[in-house]
């Protein structure tokens, strides 16, 4: 009986020990619970939020580009694209094969899709094909059951309704390159297929046009599938940018020079607004959006007319005779030549051993400045340049915008060059400037290189006496940029008498018998224009050539002279300044002047009244309200 009792009491003892052990173990669990749920709770709450909330970016619509009349130059179009969600298909390869049977995919496209699916998490949609046609989309939708993981998505794509006409101004959008991503923290860039402005205005105003990303907070489950939308923060759409371009004029200028390798610039001489900026040949900007093929790229590179170069701002040319106004004014301002002083031209000037020819064999006889510009006498300007010296010519040229950075809102604009003595020393490593160099530069040859845009700017400054700078941006959003009124621009600080003399000479070039561009005068005497021709050699004319009297038309295209013409109109109240350059156009009076004449006539025909001041700031991009009798704000011509 003792044993039985002891057996039971031992059981009870041990059961209590066991029970105590259980209590202890559960106590450990309780302590662990406290650690997880109280001490470390914050950390796990954070982890839990990260777990369930997925931030998805929403691309805002890109701002449009408008011309000064409100015409849409670059807009957005709906773009249907097929996306692939990897997790929703058992076999990506099979899905793509089926897709390819409906909408053919190239080998490289397929490789790209497979690479993208590997790079992203399995629930991230990857673009398979963009710009689907209605037929393709219908085919995909009908066959949806056989295409697991494929969905059709509506996005936006850039549309350039005027294509080649404005490609050099607007630029284009394209997927961001690796270099574009450097230093750019915009989360939008992480969106697959997001496009940024890569050239032209699209690039310069990219941030403004891009807008700010919207974000949708989505609650997702463990496999990333969306359960519900928690919050939506609408992005800020990109702002519209209104350009100074006048699309109809731009179109006319583009078409006028379309057959040449050329550039044409039309500027509002009073405020520097660029009404037309044409460069020929051009390219289709939308090609970059969908991707440039290797063949296309090679063709562009091989084309000696350089369709990708914007010659108006990036092409460098000797100004030739269009430089003579600057030389003349520099000489007048320096008082080294009288306004009516005559220089005798016998067809050439000898300096030391070198003979400098005038374009007219036999010479012009005695010419003053007015006559020298009118007939484009070289001898007069050899003499004027010799007297005033290269440094003062260069300083004056810079004041008129030549060889200066005009800060145009376009990538690829060149500054050009107007040489000085100091520049020559540094550039040649000690060879000093020669007087012969001065003579050559007096007629706009030699080292001097300018862009057509700079020539147009020079002409505008000559016409108005204000240091207008060319610009393309008229308004961002609803706010008009400063610089739209003449008063915003400083006067150039050149004697009015001297300016007037040069202007009269330029008017004589076009409107007087014997002027080099008399054949290109405007038919309407009310709106006469003033101008100056320019013809520049692209290679040295040897004595043998001169002796043989080689005709330019017989030379190969790329040996022919460049043709230039600068002009402004109306003569007595300048509104438009224009510069035309035709590569290998043989002669300024022959090809450039007629083109400029036609463009100027079009500009004048397109109702000058709408370009009156002040523009109505409340209606950006709309036709300006007409104020009759205005225009007096410009400098009297």
């Amino acid at each position: 009986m003792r044993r039985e009792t002891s057996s039971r009491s031992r059981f009870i003892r041990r059961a209590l020990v066991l029970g105590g052990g259980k209590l202890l173990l559960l106590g450990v669990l309780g302590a662990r619970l406290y650690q997880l749920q109280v001490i470390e709770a914050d950390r796990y709450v954070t982890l839990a939020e990260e777990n369930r909330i997925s931030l998805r970016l929403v691309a805002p619509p890109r701002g449009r580009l408008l011309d000064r009349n409100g015409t849409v130059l670059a807009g957005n179009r709906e773009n249907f694209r097929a996306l692939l969600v990897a997790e929703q298909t058992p076999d990506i390869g099979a899905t793509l094969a089926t897709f390819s049977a409906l909408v053919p995919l190239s080998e490289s496209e397929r490789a790209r899709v497979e690479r993208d699916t590997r790079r992203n998490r399995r629930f991230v949609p990857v673009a398979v094909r963009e710009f689907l046609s209605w037929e393709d989309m219908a085919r995909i939708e009908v066959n949806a059951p056989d295409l697991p993981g494929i969905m059709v998505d509506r996005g936006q794509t850039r549309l350039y309704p005027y294509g080649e006409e404005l490609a050099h101004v607007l630029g284009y959008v394209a997927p961001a390159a690796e270099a574009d991503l450097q230093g750019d923290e915009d989360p939008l860039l992480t969106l697959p297929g997001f496009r940024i402005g890569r050239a032209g205005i699209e690039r310069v105003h990219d941030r403004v046009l891009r807008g700010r990303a919207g974000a949708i907070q989505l609650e997702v489950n463990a496999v990333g599938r969306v359960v519900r939308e928690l919050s939506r923060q609408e992005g800020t759409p990109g702002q519209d940018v209104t350009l100074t371009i006048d699309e109809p004029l731009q179109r006319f200028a583009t078409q006028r020079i379309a057959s040449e390798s050329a550039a044409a610039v039309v500027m509002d001489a009073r405020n520097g607004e660029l009404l037309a900026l044409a460069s020929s040949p051009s390219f289709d900007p939308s090609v970059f959006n969908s991707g440039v093929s290797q063949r296309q790229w090679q063709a562009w590179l091989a084309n000696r007319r350089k369709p990708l170069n914007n010659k108006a701002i990036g092409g460098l040319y000797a100004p030739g005779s269009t430089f003579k106004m600057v030389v003349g004014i520099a000489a007048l301002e320096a008082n080294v030549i009288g306004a009516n002083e005559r220089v005798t031209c016998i067809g050439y000037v000898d300096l030391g051993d070198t003979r400098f020819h005038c374009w007219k064999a036999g010479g012009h006889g005695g010419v003053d400045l007015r006559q020298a510009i009118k007939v484009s006498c070289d001898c007069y300007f050899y003499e004027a340049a010799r007297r005033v010296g290269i440094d003062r010519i260069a300083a004056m040229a810079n004041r008129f915008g030549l060889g200066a950075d005009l800060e145009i809102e376009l990538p690829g604009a060149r500054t050009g060059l107007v040489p000085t003595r100091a520049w020559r020393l540094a550039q040649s490593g000690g060879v000093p400037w020669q007087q012969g160099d001065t003579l050559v530069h007096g007629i706009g040859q030699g080292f001097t290189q300018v862009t057509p845009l700079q020539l147009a700017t020079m002409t505008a400054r000559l016409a108005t006496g204000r240091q207008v700078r060319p610009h393309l941006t008229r308004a961002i959003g609803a706010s008009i940029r400063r610089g739209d009124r003449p008063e915003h621009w400083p006067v150039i600080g050149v004697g009015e008498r001297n300016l007037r003399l040069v202007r009269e000479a330029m008017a004589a070039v076009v409107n007087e018998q014997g002027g080099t561009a008399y054949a290109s005068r405007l038919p309407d005497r009310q709106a006469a224009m003033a101008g100056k021709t320019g013809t520049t050699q692209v290679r040295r004319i040897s004595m043998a050539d001169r002796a043989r009297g080689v005709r330019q038309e017989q030379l190969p295209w790329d040996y022919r002279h460049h043709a230039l013409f600068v002009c402004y109109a109306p003569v007595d109240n300048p509104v438009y300044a224009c510069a035309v350059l035709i590569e290998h156009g043989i002669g300024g009076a022959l090809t450039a002047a007629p083109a400029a004449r036609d463009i100027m006539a079009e500009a004048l025909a397109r109702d000058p009244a709408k370009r009156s001041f002040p523009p109505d700031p409340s209606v950006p991009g709309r036709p300006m309200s007409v104020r009759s009798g205005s225009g007096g704000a410009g400098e009297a011509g």
Partner: protein
Amino acid sequence: MLHTRRLAAPRGPGFAEKLYLISWPLVLLLAALAGIGYIALYSAAGGDPEPWAARHALRFAFGLIVLVSIGLVDIRLIERIAWPLYALAVALLLVVMLHGQVGKGAQRWLDLGPIQMQPSELMKLALCIALASYFRRATSERMGNALFLLVPALAVALPAGLILKQPNLGNALITLMLGAAVFFLAGMRIWAIGLCAGLAAAAVPFAYGYLKDYQKARILTFLNPESDPLGAGYHTIQSRIALGSGGTWGRGWLQGTQSQLDFLPEKQTDFIFTLWAEEWGMVGALALMALNLLIIAYGLAIAMRCRHAFGRLLAAGITANFFLYVFVNIAMNMGLIPVGGVPLPLVSHGGSSTLTVMLGFGLLMSVHVHRDVEFSGEEERGTGLAAR
């Protein structure tokens, strides 16, 4: 007192008396646990009684009938068929090995049409009965005799080995620990137990080599879950996040983001505790653990109150089995031990689990109802007085 006297009669209490003797407070505690299960499963389905909560309630109701029915069965009858039951359970284990349904890399389930059985769970109950039956005659001298301990040791080793072979490491270890608990309660020498424990610990490195790859992965990722956050470590990390983010007061019913959004795997079965703890916080989780502790305490009280050794050992064994489930499951939820398919009794969704738990408590109830019956051959006659 009145009952005691009558129960002392060799025939035992009558039917009505037995119904009266059933420990209804314990039934109430079990019902409360099942109620928690219902609430949690309702939430696991995103606020829907389908597909889990309703069936859970139904099964518990069925389990209650089983519990009461078993509770009414004379404990002496159960003792008499102890070894046949053991043999049957082993047979079922063998059947499941040969024809069982493979689930999650292991053959564990026996498909019996409407209900699927997990014989390893039945096995543990049968083992409790068999060991209690064997050890009820144990004396201090016998417990010191290695040969006497050989038979029950084999009785534990056989099913543990079979379960390990399924393979179900977790359940095999639970079986071993259950056996050890009964050995301890039966009076095995402390030094001998220590020796066995030492040998077992020494065998661990060798045993590791025999594990399946997924079992090794579990253990390795348990040691370092972040090594493979989307693979084998996923369960551990996600359950820890869900648990921890619950905080003191929890996110509220149906508000547990991790569970509701399927970040928590197997939330309706193995990880129901995490779901509960996320939504009800530490307070709720501690309440759930306290409820389980109360049930365990109740079971131990029944064991200690029992006048016959068979009942004592059986009740304590069943309680230990219950405890092991609760502990292993919760510890696993907290990432304290490697993950294994061990449900939380009466809370996890799973017919086999609920049924076997209720079966076990039925046996416990039978002990309670028949606590004062006399066993032939048990050398405890007349100890009723001593017990008091």
